[in-house]
């Protein structure tokens, strides 16, 4: 792997970009691998990376139906935080946040992780109680989170309108200073590059059409659009299309797929120093390093694979944004798109084994998977390598939907669930 450093940066600046090389190979699929990951988003590529790096399983392929990072990894609003209420959630998202903090150095790739602080607004008594409960629960779990007055919130994010006269006035806020954003494409590319350097094959335009089983019923390989690939261990990390892939193995999970929308404004000068979320009036917003305001809207009420949502969903969020930040009311929106998110009944992910030996699944991240990318990949790689769930992943096993030990995270995103 060609390592990046200050020297290569200066050389690139002086000698020009034409020296740039592809950062990973594009090999044809081999006939067999030790393990195959289905889904070339951040979670899947990361899983392959940690399989190779931490478990010495380097004979790995990542199969991607489209192009890597072209699904939800490239469509989300890149918000990273770990201030979840339940202990199980706090453990996995904090595990991810700690990995985020060293990720650029670990991958030798600038993922532009910026801990600019995530502000979650309260607009009524219920919000105050709920967010303060989160603050206290987080502190007991060793996660930073603090309660701010409206004036303190405005000091963190000056564009915020804290006038008491607006329809839903800001009456307080919770701030996680270690939260922030990262460059989503760079996360996929960084993991791809680092995994490739350790021998992982990244195979794009390769759709899984069926599953091969051995006489015991265990997974023996995959039928794909680029031919059969044998593997005794298969990990499915297909986000919104998990149900579609698993249906080809005859498996059904408690998942429903919804379009989740996001949009960006025209680029402007730096005006917005933090991330702001409001669950109650349903807005989340940050500013990218290019200057665009990145705005997250909600999911449609019906399941869909259309990768586009209703305009009224985006309009609803923009109305909230314009009330909280009146100066943005004349900004034009450049692009609006949708991604398909797989949502579980308790809004927590499913990570672990399936009834089919050798088949593992990591799905159900719903509207909030990006922030978990490194942690999710790390514990899933452990699960695939050892055949046993990682201790952090164990509570997220499928059997919680029959035992009733749900991990209720309805507050997982600023999305009205």
């Amino acid at each position, binding site marked *: 792997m060609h390592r990046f450093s200050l020297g290569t940066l200066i050389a690139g600046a002086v000698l020009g970009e034409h020296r740039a090389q592809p950062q990973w190979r594009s090999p044809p699929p081999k006939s067999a691998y030790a393990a195959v990951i289905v889904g070339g988003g951040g979670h899947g590529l990361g899983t392959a990376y940690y399989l190779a790096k931490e478990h010495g399983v380097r004979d790995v392929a990542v199969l991607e139906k489209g192009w890597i990072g072209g699904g939800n990894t490239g469509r989300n609003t890149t918000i990273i935080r770990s201030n979840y209420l339940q202990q199980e959630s706090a453990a996995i998202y904090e595990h991810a946040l700690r990995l985020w903090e060293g990720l650029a150095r670990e991958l030798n790739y600038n993922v532009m992780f910026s801990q600019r602080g995530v502000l979650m607004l309260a607009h009524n008594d219920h919000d105050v109680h709920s967010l303060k409960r989160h603050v206290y629960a987080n502190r007991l779990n060793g996660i930073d989170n603090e309660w701010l007055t409206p004036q303190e919130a405005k000091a963190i994010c000056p564009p915020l309108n804290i006038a008491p006269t607006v329809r839903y006035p800001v009456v307080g806020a919770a701030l996680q200073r270690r939260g922030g954003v990262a460059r989503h494409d760079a996360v996929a590319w960084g993991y791809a590059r680092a995994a490739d350097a350790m021998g992982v094959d990244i195979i794009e335009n390769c759709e899984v059409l069926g599953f091969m089983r051995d006489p015991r019923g265990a997974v023996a390989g995959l039928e794909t659009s680029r031919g059969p690939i044998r593997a005794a261990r298969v990990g499915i990390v297909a986000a919104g299309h998990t*149900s579609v892939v698993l249906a080809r193995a005859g498996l059904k999970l*408690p*998942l429903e797929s919804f379009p989740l929308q996001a949009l960006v404004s025209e680029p402007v000068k730096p005006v917005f120093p933090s991330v702001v979320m409001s669950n109650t009036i349903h807005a989340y917003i940050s500013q990218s390093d290019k200057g665009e305001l990145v705005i997250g809207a909600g999911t449609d*009420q*019906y399941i869909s694979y259309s990768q586009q949502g*209703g305009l*009224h969903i985006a309009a609803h969020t923009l109305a909230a944004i314009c009330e909280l930040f009146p100066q943005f009311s004349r900004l034009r929106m450049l692009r609006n798109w949708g991604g398909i998110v797989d949502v579980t009944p308790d809004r927590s992910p499913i990570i672990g084994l399936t009834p089919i030996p050798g088949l593992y699944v990591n799905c159900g991240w719903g509207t909030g998977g990006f922030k978990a990318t490194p942690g999710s990949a790390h514990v899933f790689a452990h699960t695939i390598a050892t055949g046993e769930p990682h201790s952090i992943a164990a509570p997220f096993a499928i059997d919680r*939907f*029959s*035992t009733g030990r749900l991990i209720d995270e309805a507050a997982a995103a600023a999305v009205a669930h």
Partner: protein
Amino acid sequence: MLLIPCPYCGPRPEIEFRCGGEAHIARPQDPAKVDDAAWGDYLFLRTNPKGVHAERWVHTHGCRRWFNALRDTLSDRILATHAVGERRPDPPR
């Protein structure tokens, strides 16, 4: 936004409706007699198809009646709607 043909009121905009999720999920006759897995399946397991989906809608801001719909989840096109209790129509090909 979808334009949804309510079987009672005719085509109306989606914001008048609430979607009730997958249709034709039968509650076990005697919940005490089914095991945890079967009860969990009833509560949580959904088909989630990429294609034709049978689902329930309620015309909240209209006639307030429930009805069933067949919708293609890839194109979001509503193929048919029908009253609860009526036989589910075959989707047009």
